[in-house]
């Protein structure tokens, strides 16, 4: 029961309260670059959700077993060379390079797979996949997971990592689709000359970010609602 509550809270937190784009300001480049039309923006959002989940799955595995302080693999190696069991080998300095590496190669693999076996799917969102291999939102998701794997007393399991990734991806999809909708309407508007194009898009993004700040504090309500519902 407690696990389910925590999963829902992590999901809602990543999707709305701490929206990756509008709260942490990561993944801004696709948010501004691919938000001209709602259908492409939605495609981009789906691709990001997919990649962020895949990378969360792989990176949680690597982090849990190899990179975190007190991980099984380095501990076993350390013991087998006769080291003092009281000290730990911490490989979390490698997190950035390994995350980028894992994300890039897994996306490459998925792209090849989709291109071979699902050509229509590849045509609709395959073009976005290479664009988001080095997207900071993806890396940010993995680094958030790392943060929760560094404290050995409150380790995140795979389900929690996946809830965060899914929430983050869906939050990104929501933000970019809303943005694209607004920008489609904006094309019809009489925007003052100096603000045309990027200027007004950034203002809109700022106002959207402020609007999303309104979700701060919702977590308490969500928590009590969920626990009341599950009781």
């Amino acid at each position, binding site marked *: 029961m407690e696990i389910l509550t925590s999963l829902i809270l992590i999901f809602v937190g990543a999707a709305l309260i701490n929206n990756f784009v509008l709260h942490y300001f990561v993944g801004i480049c696709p948010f501004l670059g691919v938000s001209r039309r709602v259908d492409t923006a939605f495609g981009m959002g789906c691709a990001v959700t997919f990649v962020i989940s895949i990378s969360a799955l792989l990176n949680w595995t690597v982090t849990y077993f190899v990179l975190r302080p007190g991980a099984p693999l380095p501990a076993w190696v350390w013991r087998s060379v006769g080291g003092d069991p009281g000290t730990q080998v911490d490989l979390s300095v490698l997190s950035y390079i390994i995350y980028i590496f894992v994300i890039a190669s897994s996306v490459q693999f998925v792209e090849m*797979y989709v291109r071979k076996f699902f050509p229509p799917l590849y045509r609709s969102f395959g073009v976005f996949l290479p664009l988001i291999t080095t997207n900071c939102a993806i890396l940010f998701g993995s680094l958030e997971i790392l943060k929760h794997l560094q404290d050995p007393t409150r380790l995140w399991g795979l389900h929690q990592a996946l809830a965060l990734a899914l929430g983050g991806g869906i939050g990104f999809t929501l933000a970019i689709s809303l943005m694209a909708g607004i920008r489609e309407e904006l094309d019809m508007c*009489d925007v003052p000359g100096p603000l045309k194009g990027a200027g007004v898009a950034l203002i809109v993004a700022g106002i959207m970010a402020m609007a999303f700040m309104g979700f701060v504090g919702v977590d308490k309500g969500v928590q009590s609602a969920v626990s009341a519902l599950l009781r």
Partner: protein
Amino acid sequence: MLSTVALILAAGVLAVLAVGMGFVLGWANRAFHVRTDPKVEQILAALPGANCGGCGFVGCAEYAAAVATGEADVSLCGPGGAGAAQGLAGIMGVELEESLPYRAMVHCSAHTDERLQRAEYRGEPTCASANLVAGVQGCTYGCLGMGDCERSCKYGAIRVVDGLSTVDYTKCVGCKACERTCPRNIITIVPFKAENMLVVACSNQDSAGDVRAVCAVGCLGCRACTKVAPDLISIEGALPVINYDNYDPTDDLIAKVLEKCPRKRLFFVGKPTEADLAAVAGEELPDEIQADFKTTVDETEWRG
């Protein structure tokens, strides 16, 4: 001791990951290999890359794919013209049939002061919206002169001169953008088999009296032309239609047709003749004339 182990572990983890991923990707590259036709790349390189959509496909890439599979003809590219068609034919190994350059023709020749029964129009200065309003001008067939075609042309080849869309045949590439955008459908894209083409410069299908009432120059449908040259010109509805299959600009018959036409609504478009060039040789070219719309809103499609 601790740092040495950490160092070796770090190097080992990276090496194992690199080798593992490299192996998986290398295997996937072969197992999931998708055969792409090298012709598509070649064709794409031979096309001008204007992505104008004149060929009927979404962009140059789709057209290239269609040509490579043999679905599309090699001579559809307007901007690329004969050169691109030649290149594509070479890649595909097909014989190029005689490919004619396509050019826009405006089937109206009335300038502002020749169009009668005009009412003041203060709406949005686009043909598309003016066309929705009755009574902007008497002729419901002819050019509105608001320049939708001019704005649609990526090549600056069509321009409103004295309220009439006029094609600059040195710039026109036949991309059909103006044909698609004209709300009155008075622009057609015609294969130019000669440098100068005869055009019926009127679209008014009404009877002579009604035409006279709304236009100082429009075709009356008098059939004088088809009597002189029945093979070349036929009458459909109230307007003469030129059968370009039988068209030869050097034919003497055409001079007679031009002479017979009471409204002089048949004339040549295309490259200027030497006589025309000589006539204007001394004149200075005026600067481009911009329409002076009294509006505070600038060049956007929507002026709400």
